[in-house]
């Protein structure tokens, strides 16, 4: 397959634009989805999109820039740390809400 596209769109740009699309997709999901777990998922997609932009635009003709790569790795680790915390909070919130129904709440005010 030899499309004329590569002339217009380098590999780096392709991935970067994909990243941009992911960001948009994730944001749309973040806005329209209600459940926090799904929002967390959406955030992860946005994050992935951002990393892809970083990587794509660091894609030189011969090599990929190590600098953005390192940033992405750092970013991924931070993202997973936050996702873990977020997931834990979501679960704990559900637990306390469930506990609040029959018994007295021990950890928070009933959510508005």
């Amino acid at each position, binding site marked *: 397959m030899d*499309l004329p596209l590569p002339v217009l769109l*380098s590999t*780096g*740009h*392709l*991935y*970067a*634009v*994909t990243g941009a*699309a*992911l*960001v*948009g*997709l994730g*944001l*749309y*999901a973040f*806005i*329209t*989805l209600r*459940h926090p*777990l*799904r929002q*967390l*998922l*959406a955030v*992860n997609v946005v994050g992935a999109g951002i*990393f*892809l*932009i970083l*990587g*794509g*635009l*660091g*894609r*030189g003709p*011969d*090599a*990929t820039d190590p600098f*953005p790569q*390192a940033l992405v*790795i*750092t970013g*991924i*680790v*931070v*993202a*997973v740390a936050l996702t*873990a*915390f977020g*997931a*834990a909070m*979501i*679960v*704990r919130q*559900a*637990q306390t*809400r*469930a506990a609040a129904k029959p018994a007295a709440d*021990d950890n928070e005010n009933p959510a508005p």
Partner: protein
Amino acid sequence: MTFAFDLILCLMILGTAAIALFVRDALAAIAFFIAFGNLMGLAWLGLDAVNVALAEIAIGAGVTGVLLILARARLLALGDAATSTGSPLLLRLGALAACAGFVVLLAAAVLSIPPESGLDRVVAPLMPGLGIENRVTGVLLAFRAYDTLLESFVLLGALVAVWSLAPAGAWPGRPADPGMADAPMRRVAGTFGQLLLPVALVMAAYLVWAGSDLPGGAFQAGTVLAGGLLVAGMGGTIGLPSSDQPLLRAALVLGPVVFLAIGLAGVAAGGLLVYPAGLAKALIVTIEYTLFLSIGVTLALLVAGPPMPGASDPDPEGKG
């Protein structure tokens, strides 16, 4: 790889992402998310970024996936299916317009920047001084070691934050059993875990070692270790440890503290995180090994969640 491959990959990434985001069922969404993560890993391979690909697959898809599955399972146990519910049409239309406009803007901005590896030229001449080959590792643990140092503490902090969610009376205690509900599966996982854990350990150690020169590194290795620990934990091979075990604590802080200590020791050589000439590689490897251990344990505990009441543990010995 051809451009067509790249293009198809990108379309698949977008497709899986869309499904992961908008499919109704949560489990399906997570499954597609894991697929999405793996495709992302492929994309990174396509970008010649093997280090990132490893990290993405291990962490972005693996750990995050397990994490989400676990969370969904726990929610389901509470009667919350985490299905996606629709929003008002008006909001969706507005959001669509805003996001579409934003994507166009962002794409335009992205396209206005020529892709190039500008800093590679800066990094390359500095690598010999470090004695390692992997430039990404060089950036992570030398040129931008400060970021990494702080990041290791972010990870630690995230665990502390998760712990802080422990309900009253559950502290100090163990996380809720992440185990499988049905016994056969559990046995399988148990056996698998017994096998996998040592393998994971060896594999991770190799990844760290390789990370100096080949793709790999502390984070990827730590993830592998975490994976091994988790599978073992699910199968009951090892019990999840109580949060106040000194050994556990030591394992958690070891990596970051060693990193910090080496960083401060660098002051003697001229400043924070300065590696004395010749010692660079030794120090980097030391950091990587300790860090990998701590990251592994931390990630595993992050996935397991906060200590919960009644989470008994058959194995008082704690972490394997």
